[in-house]
């Protein structure tokens, strides 16, 4: 089938530094196209999925993502999300989605009080999202985290609502997929590494799947399934909007 390419957009804030990696990661998938979306623009240029990349938007001198959420492009992203568009926030992108109110909770300083860059194991908690549909339930993905403020937190009522609505998408676990001491790199509540909104079309995660798309690199290739899920979803639009 020679369908039209799946169109991705990667937002570039000043201080984004994983924008090129996200762009590169998408371009390793055949049948995709990808373009940058400048933070001062207000037009998403017809893309079918938006990635808010990692980095230090505006230096993150204030709370991470707190300034980026006011960028002109964010109103377009919010409108896009409201109409069911697929939005994925990675690391600083996750923080920005939380600041923008598109995802519940908050991301605070790591309990170790230091930036941490290491491989983590992520247990896929639900495959019922456009971002994990290509994974197997309970599957363990080995992906790198790198952040200073990745400690996910949320109030108890919201957490129960999120659990009931199956919004916890990824949890830190050991290599066998069990929640374990030492597996959580930042102290995140309930080992939460990634969450989605109630409508399931907005997803944020602290680890960096865009650095895990090529098996011969140190990052491995376990991040591919997340991007593949998005591609599959776009190619089967009926299932998302239902």
């Amino acid at each position, binding site marked *: 089938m020679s369908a039209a390419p799946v169109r991705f957009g990667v937002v570039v804030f000043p201080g984004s*530094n994983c924008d090129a990696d996200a762009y590169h990661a998408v371009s390793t998938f055949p049948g995709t196209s990808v373009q940058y979306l400048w933070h001062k623009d207000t037009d998403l240029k017809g893309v079918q999925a938006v990635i808010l990349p990692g980095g230090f938007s*505006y230096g993150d001198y204030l709370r991470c993502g707190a300034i980026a959420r006011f960028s002109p492009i964010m109103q377009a992203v919010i409108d896009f999300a409201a109409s069911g568009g697929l939005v994925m926030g990675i690391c600083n992108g996750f923080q920005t989605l939380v600041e923008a109110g598109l995802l519940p909770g908050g991301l605070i300083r790591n309990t170790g009080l230091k*930036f*941490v*860059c290491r491989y983590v194991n992520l247990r896929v908690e639900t495959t019922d999202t456009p971002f994990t549909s290509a994974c197997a339930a309970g599957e363990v993905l080995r992906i790198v985290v*790198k952040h200073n403020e990745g400690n996910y937190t949320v109030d108890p009522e919201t957490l129960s609502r999120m659990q009931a609505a199956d919004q916890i998408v990824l949890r830190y676990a050991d290599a066998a997929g069990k929640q374990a001491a030492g597996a959580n790199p930042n102290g995140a509540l309930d080992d939460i590494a990634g969450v989605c909104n109630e409508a399931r079309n907005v997803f944020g995660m602290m680890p960096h799947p865009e650095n895990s798309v090529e098996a*011969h690199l140190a990052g491995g290739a376990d991040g591919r399934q997340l991007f593949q899920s998005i591609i599959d979803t776009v190619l089967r639009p009926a299932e998302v909007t239902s």
Partner: protein
Amino acid sequence: MSRRATLEAAVKLGLTADEYAHICAIQGGEPTYVELAIYSLMWSEHCSYKHSRPVLGRFPTIGPRILQGPGENAGIIDVGDGWAVAMKVESHNHPSAVEPFQGAATGVGGIVRDIFTMGARPCVSMDSLRFGELTEPRQRFLLDGVIGGIAHYGNCLGIPTIGGEIYFEPSYEGNCLVNAMSAGMIRTDGIVRAIASGVGNHVVLIGSKTGRDGIGGASVLASQEFDETLEEKRPSVQVGDPFTEKKLIEACLELIHRKLVVSMQDLGAAGLTSSSSEMSSKGFVGLDIHADRVPLREADMEPWEIMISESQERMLAIVTAEQIADVREVCERWDLDCTVIGAVTDSKMLRIWWHGERVANIPARRLADESPVIRTPSVKPGYIVDEPVAVNDAAYPRPADLGAALTQLLAAPNIASKRWAWEQYDYIVQANTMQIPGSDAAVLRIKDTERGIAFSNDCNGRHCYLDPYRGAKAAVAEAARNLACAGALPVAVTDCLNFGNPEKGEIYWQFEQAVEGIAQACEALDTPVVSGNVSFYNESFGQAIYPTPIIGMLGVYDDVSVHIDDAFKDEGDVIVLLGAQAGWMDGSEYQKVAYGKVEGRVPDVDLQLEVELQNKLRAAIEARLLRSAHDCAEGGLAVALAECCIAGGSTGGAQFADPEAPRSGRHGRWLGADVDLGSAAAVAGAAGRPDLALFGEAPTRVVVSVAPELLGPLDEVLGGLPHRVLGRVTGANLRCTMEGKELFTVPVGELHSAYESLPQRLA
């Protein structure tokens, strides 16, 4: 403008009476204060290399791959397929000793600017650090601040910091070393040099506003020893803003790639003064700088302050009148200040203007390139001895438990895993990292090619102290050997030469000896020196650091997929030792840790053998014969074997005995080894002691592992190179015997606990 430029004022700025007289002769009488301030910076040791220049000429600097040698912001090496690498290392020792976080952060910022100034996109950082012993609280504070500063700045820029090296010795207690290396990728036809040209072209200042931070950093901080006024020097340390630098990188690379600038230079030590005088001197043109047009943080700054401020994140560009509008558009898009502050002239003079009045008028060439040269008569220090120590049982009692001695060494801060540090660095951003920190070298692929590059940095300061010639030569050999262990071909060197006060004959002797050692090794290994930095005055209260010539080396791959690491891979693989030198006590980590001594004479590298070993090792890796390779460095053969075990693990392992495996990206369980060292006389030298065979140090030795069926082909590749089979990769223990007699058996889990114990020393 009432400040007088008297001799007294000159001395206060760090100039000597002779230099002041020389300045008066050039200027035709008493200079203006602005002129004096400019001379004091440009003729400081830090900017002028006045003590080192006559000696550095000894380095080999040219070769078929070298596109740019010393004298520019960075050296540039052709790595194939139209790609080149720009690389440089630079010290930020004194700022880091005064304020570790900002000192280290701005050290990273400065070296990264040197790379993108030339048009290269920075792709890797590595840092060589030296501190006093961790038993001292201040040293732990310095270490924590320096690592945090490197992480803060480098991570924000999105440049992977793929390791480096850290050592702890009492000699660095009052004067830590922070040497930041950076490298970037550039197309061979896209190189920009810092040469002003085109009379009438604009001189444009891009980036941060100018403040009073870092006034006199190069003269007050970098070119003097430390004493009890250390704390007072804090205002001379700049504060970094990596967010602005990140925007500068993107804006400047766009300007360069779109050919919107004639040339570019970053503002580093001595700020506007050095950048403007160097650009005009190299271009044989003059520059007019209107200091009153420089955007300021503090409105009441005087012209001399503006000219020597070391405010960070600023670039100077030469731009034609036709292109200035485009340049403004790019800078505006990135929310960066872009101000025309002057023009290129045909006067060959650096002229500084202040509201229409000329406040300085200096011949650019004499300022930048004709500073005085000083060669201190060198004196061989009294502590140097010509003979190795006699390892007798009285001075060096035999250890009762060799296994315990091994775990003690693995836990020594100089050997123990530096994971605590490098896990604070983003080592994977940019999606090129093939080998993460913790092995012998950093390895990166070059996108859209089969090629790759590798980096290593090395220097054993203790060895350089005992014999600066042999120690420095060994540092070059080891840096190359580390690259060869990963399968890369070493092609170029950048060096950071850290020494004490060069006005002292003993220090100058150390410096001359080290340069000679580096030069000889670089000639033998065919690795020209393409860039570098000299850092003198690393003394506090008259005590000099160990001479520490840090060697940063670039290696290349035609096919990066051949690269290997140090980890044992599978049970049953055969362990082979390449090289046959017996272990030496002199200058070893074992001597320091077990006996509390630093004495003797370190072994000399046989460069011919070194080249043969590295060539054959690389040939074996390129033929895909080896599973792993690891250099024997601090701690000798036993520590090298232990490191291969700890790093190892079969991908088929069912259990995860190795708690670091998931977070280091390694799979599986630990692997052990069962090795026999052979005859005592051959491996332990004249003393014949098993502990020397295990922990003694010697250059030109590498531990490799090979699948049993490939041992024959490996033998063929190695030919006449001394090598012997030590044993096999096995289950969960490291067991060592000598001529069949057991020396020790230690579970790898215990070795691991010792090796990963650094965080406990920092608590």
